[in-house]
């Protein structure tokens, strides 16, 4: 079980907002690299089945950015080649590389986000903004498997009735459209029944409240405090202009003034905090498991 599953979804949502927004809207090579490293680390540390293709995908994307940026952008002072009267510069290539890093970081962050934020948590978050919206999402999520199942049934019925010819693409598409049409009728009738029974049970009679099992514990407070404080560091440094970095005309070494360092270190702590929480809970589990010895397990006396 992921340690994130025990956090309140609001905490996790706020953390991801902080890390993604301050990461992708600060074009500073150090911040970008930290963001990518933190995102990859979290992706690796997180338990569960993971898609291995993501690494290939991000690598290809970074490569594509690095190659194509100099083709379209001709700024920069260090010219390595001239093609068709256009300069191919080192700076444009570097910009492309870091752009690729930034995009890859966003891909990794969102991959972890999608893995943690399951549908029930999205409903919980939405209920803060609007209960009606949360209700719409809840019902839609319930209807999806229902409709898929119903569509299969309708399809089989159509086949059994002999109305189905899957010889050409046109007839297949027509068959699919007929299934959809039948599904629509079913859906509308069902909708009316559902809404009427909702009304009969007192929906919209008074103000509604939402129920959830998530609690807000000490862990949430610590994690929330960490994300807010260290985001504030980065945002402060950013607002003072310490993190502004220009690739053109020369790609210099990023500034090392104290304010810039504060921003980068703050962002680093922010990025690494979920991995620490995750890894820490994993270590704790290992430790507790090692303490469970055979002598502790009491077998029932026969």
């Amino acid at each position, binding site marked *: 079980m992921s340690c994130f599953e025990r956090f309140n979804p609001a905490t996790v949502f706020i953390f991801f907002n902080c890390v993604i927004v301050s990461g*992708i809207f600060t074009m500073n090579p150090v911040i970008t690299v930290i963001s990518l490293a933190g995102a990859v680390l979290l992706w690796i540390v997180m338990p569960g089945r993971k898609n291995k293709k993501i690494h290939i995908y991000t690598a290809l994307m970074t490569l594509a950015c690095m190659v194509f940026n100099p083709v379209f952008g001709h700024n920069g002072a260090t010219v390595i080649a001239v093609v068709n009267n256009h300069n191919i510069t080192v700076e444009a290539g570097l910009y492309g590389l870091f752009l690729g890093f930034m995009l890859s970081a966003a891909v990794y962050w969102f991959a972890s986000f999608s893995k943690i934020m399951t549908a029930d948590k999205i409903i919980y978050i939405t209920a*803060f*903004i609007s*209960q009606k919206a949360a209700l719409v999402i809840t019902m839609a999520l319930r209807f999806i498997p229902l409709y898929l199942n119903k569509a299969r049934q309708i399809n089989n019925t159509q086949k059994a009735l002999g109305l189905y010819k899957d010889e050409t693409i046109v007839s297949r598409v*027509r068959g699919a459209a007929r299934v959809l049409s039948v599904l629509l009728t079913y859906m509308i009738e069902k909708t009316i029944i559902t809404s009427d029974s909702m009304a009969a049970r007192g929906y919209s009679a008074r103000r509604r409240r939402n129920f959830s099992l998530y609690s807000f514990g000490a862990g949430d407070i610590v994690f929330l405090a960490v994300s807010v404080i260290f985001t504030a560091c980065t945002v402060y440094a*950013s607002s003072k202009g310490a993190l*502004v970095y220009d690739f053109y005309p020369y790609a210099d070494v990023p500034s090392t003034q104290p304010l810039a360092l504060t921003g980068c270190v703050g962002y680093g702590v922010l990025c690494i905090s979920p991995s620490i929480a995750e890894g820490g809970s994993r270590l704790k589990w290992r430790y507790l498991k090692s303490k469970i010895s055979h002598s502790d397990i009491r077998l029932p006396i026969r």
Partner: protein
Amino acid sequence: MTVIKSEKLRRALSVVIPFVFIPAVVLSGVLVFRSKNYSYGIFAVAVLSVLLFICGFDRKKTGTRRLVLISAAVAMACVGRAVCSFIPAVNPITAITVLFAVYLGSEAGFMTGAFSALISNIFAGQGVWTPFQMFAWGMIGFFAGVFAKYLENHTVRLCVYVFFAGLVYSFIMDVWSVMWAYNAFNLKYYIASVTSAAPYTAVYAVSNVIFILLLKKPFSEKLGRIKVKYGI
């Protein structure tokens, strides 16, 4: 939504949030993220306008039947996207959103489009593009509802609308990718990104028209019927 009991405070918030809070968030962000101010601005505007729509939807009295019908439409669009996912760039979300918007009004259209994007992305993959997809599909639905009088019972106009909606959807997404990557609207990069996406855009726009041709008749008959029968 956290229940605010005081009527006065609620009324004050409904003025303060759209006219003070949202511009403040956008402006302060633009000042903070200087090196990426334009892309932050456009992102914040997309997110907040979707939020504003949802809050407005929450405040209004919506009939239970209409509410359930919207969620059914969302589910249908998501099922359509899941079923069509084996063909790249083809999904019926635009077509279904537009058809529902024409018969159920602009607000239902916006909600159908926006929530279809959000929920189908649970399966298809969330990303920075989610708010933009919500915004783009929501707006397509919204304007279909606004022009419902011209589009209703008129297959050719509907096809033209959906074709251009497909193009506009792709162009909005391209604007975002260029703004994000280069923080300024650079026409050269924009043209490059539009041309590289051209086959997808073309397939998408044409597939929308095909979906409308297939779905127009059953949708107009059935949605028209329940509108009369149940007074939605």
